[in-house]
């Protein structure tokens, strides 16, 4: 009932207003959130079935993470290409993938905050291991750190583009 559909011309209008980098930033954030949700659902299912128990649990987790990384990379490339097509069709003057000094500065500053978030995830994992939570939880926390870093960096980029300055 609340779903809103966009026509092709409306999508083209979005491509005119926002640069490729801004559109790509939003789309990649959504991708990160979707894959994080998929991971949570999968991990909860596996955990409740007791398949994370024992040494086989880490093997299963490793396989799951590798599949997820592969799917994330493929989705990222596909969305990147779609974004390029939308901006080209929209006649956006900034060429897809082209960055100037302000873009690079925005990218660098948001990356710095993202790295901090990754570090916090790693620290949380080490503390969890120290408290005897187990390696599975350590991996979950590291992945949570990566996802949070991705989303935080994107949110900071979005805010910087709205403000106009890094």
């Amino acid at each position, binding site marked *: 009932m609340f779903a809103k559909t966009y026509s092709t011309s409306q999508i083209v209008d979005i491509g005119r207003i926002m640069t490729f980098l801004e559109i790509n930033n939003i789309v990649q954030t959504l991708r990160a959130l979707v894959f994080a949700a998929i991971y949570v659902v999968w991990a909860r299912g596996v955990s409740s079935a007791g398949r994370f128990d024992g040494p086989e649990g880490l093997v299963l987790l490793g396989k799951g993470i590798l599949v997820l990384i592969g799917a994330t990379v493929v989705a990222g490339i596909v969305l990147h290409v779609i974004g390029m097509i939308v901006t080209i069709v929209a006649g956006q003057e*900034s060429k897809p993938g082209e960055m*100037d*000094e*302000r*873009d690079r500065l925005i990218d660098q500053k948001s990356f710095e905050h993202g790295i901090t978030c990754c570090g916090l995830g790693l620290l949380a994992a080490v503390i969890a291991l120290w408290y005897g939570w187990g390696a599975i939880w350590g991996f979950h926390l590291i992945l949570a750190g990566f996802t949070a870093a991705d989303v935080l960096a994107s949110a900071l980029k979005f805010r910087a583009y709205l403000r*106009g*300055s890094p």
Partner: protein
Amino acid sequence: MSKGVISNNIRRLRFDAGEMTQKDLAEKVGASRQTIVAIEAGKYAPSLQLAFEIAVAFGVPIQDVFSFEPS
């Protein structure tokens, strides 16, 4: 350390240059139109390199484009 305020005359210089568009200026200096918009609005202070390139694009000295007021 005081930051000071960097102001610019880009809007007037564009007008003097026959209503040069932000897009044209962006293409001349190798930046995006959004960056020119941000500089013109005083939201983004460009690097020295870009500031010089903007001055060269208008054919004026850099102090005619940007001015600094210490706070």
